[in-house]
């Protein structure tokens, strides 16, 4: 529940990470089942601070993409049924726009224009929010998303899903210089598949005695060193790409948002590299997926474009940043 677009009244998240961790990644069928089971209790919990409950609501906003179609349908159809039943205006919002607006939520005086690096399990994008409701895409990944690379490398190292926290933890005591890894930059695009493959080949070329029966490094020291080297290189690629966008646009304000923005090494690197600029990195609970950011993005969308008519189309491949 978000008041006037910017004040978070409540933010409730039902995480499925424990469920999917057993499978090493998100299982779409399980995700859709879980959404149906969780949506009403989560809404009840979010409504709890409102004295008037449903009567205190003025509008509904809902994610219409990108994402898994089965999950998007459950959210969009539940939300539209609620809006119709309560005679409330509703609008569909891009999940990516939500991440961009998590910076706006986190920083009370932040207003566009600003650059945003959106880094998550499914996306690596650099955009400029020119004005509310207007964004320009500056760079995106040609292959894997940054978060996806963290997950895949974690698996190569025998670390659990999700890979971000696992690699960050393993990298703490690792020697990042022991296994130098190549950086990749394709024009204005990000790329992480080469880095992931480099980790794979590094592990393949380790002495057989260093690998267990599954081809995973058996030494904690080697795992830590590879985790540290991968994290260092991935973060450098992200920061280099962001710096390139800053130079092209002359931006004075930058934001780093999305699940990967919770990574401590990335947060530190951005603050260090862009010390002369205004840098916004939201708190951890606004970096990972949440509905407050959808409320903030939706508040602007409703203000600028008005409500959507019945039949909000879900779009699993939606690319929209405002």
């Amino acid at each position: 529940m978000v008041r006037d677009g910017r004040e978070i009244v409540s933010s409730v998240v039902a995480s499925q990470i424990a469920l999917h961790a057993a499978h090493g990644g998100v299982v779409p069928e399980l995700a859709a089942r879980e959404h149906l089971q969780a949506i009403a209790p989560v809404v009840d919990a979010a409504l709890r601070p409102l004295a008037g409950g449903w009567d205190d609501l003025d509008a509904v906003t809902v994610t219409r993409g990108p994402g898994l179609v089965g999950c998007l349908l459950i959210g969009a159809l539940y939300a539209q049924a609620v809006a119709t039943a309560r005679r409330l205006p509703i609008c569909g919002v891009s999940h990516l726009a939500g991440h961009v607006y998590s910076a706006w939520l986190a920083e009370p005086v932040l207003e566009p224009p600003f650059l945003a690096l959106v880094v998550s399990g499914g996306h690596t994008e650099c955009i400029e929010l020119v004005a509310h409701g207007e964004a320009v895409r500056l760079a995106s990944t040609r292959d894997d998303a940054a978060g996806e690379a963290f997950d895949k490398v974690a698996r190569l190292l025998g670390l659990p899903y999700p890979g971000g926290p696992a690699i960050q933890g393993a990298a703490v005591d690792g020697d990042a210089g022991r296994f130098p890894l190549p950086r990749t930059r394709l024009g204005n695009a990000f790329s992480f598949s080469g880095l992931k493959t480099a980790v794979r080949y590094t592990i393949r070329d380790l002495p057989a005695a260093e690998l267990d029966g599954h081809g995973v490094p058996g030494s904690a020291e080697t795992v830590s060193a590879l985790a540290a080297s991968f994290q260092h290189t991935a973060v450098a690629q992200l920061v280099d790409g962001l710096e390139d966008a800053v130079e092209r646009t002359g931006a004075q304000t930058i934001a780093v948002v999305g699940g990967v923005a919770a990574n401590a090494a990335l947060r530190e690197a951005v603050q260090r590299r862009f010390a002369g600029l205004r840098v916004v990195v939201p708190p951890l609970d606004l970096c990972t997926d949440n509905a407050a950011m959808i409320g903030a993005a939706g508040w602007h969308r409703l203000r600028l474009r008005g409500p959507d008519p019945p039949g909000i189309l879900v779009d699993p491949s939606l690319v929209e940043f405002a």
Partner: protein
Amino acid sequence: MSVVAIDTSARPRCVCVLATRDGELIRAEATTGVALDVALPHALAALLDSTVEAVVVAVGPGSYTGLRSGIAAGLGVAHALDLTLHGVGSLTVIAAGHPAEAGARVWVGADAGRGGLWVAAAEGIDGSWRVAAPERVELARFDPGGLPVLSTDPLHLVGLREVRPEVALAHVVPIALQSVALPRAGLRAAYVE
């Protein structure tokens, strides 16, 4: 007072009705081949009014995504208006579209896709059908054994008696209302698991 009922178990088809508690059809919104994210909100916008006192939704067997979409929409209405939500089997819905004579025996069937058929035996008792647990069989090998087959789908079966989906959905309302209301937490579609 009225009841909104939703059946999206056959994914290309979206059937929503406003009916009386006794199962009399008031208004219907039915589409085929229209995406559910378009069809369902339009149907609810056309049907919902201040007289609605309960929601009924088909919970399977049927299309996984279709069932979950219908249940999500039904849950949204019930949750926002603090109404009870009642689940009903998809084949029980179909059977309700045909008069149940005492002692009559029929099959109730629905297209399960990929050459499959959801089918259940039904017997007329006290003016309504007692529908057995459904099973999935191969449509080409199914032998009705001379009994009629009730369905809302144009199945290539001897003895097929097509039932109008919106009439069936309205008629199943009093049966569904006798069931215990579904919990709002932990909802799941039958035959999805």
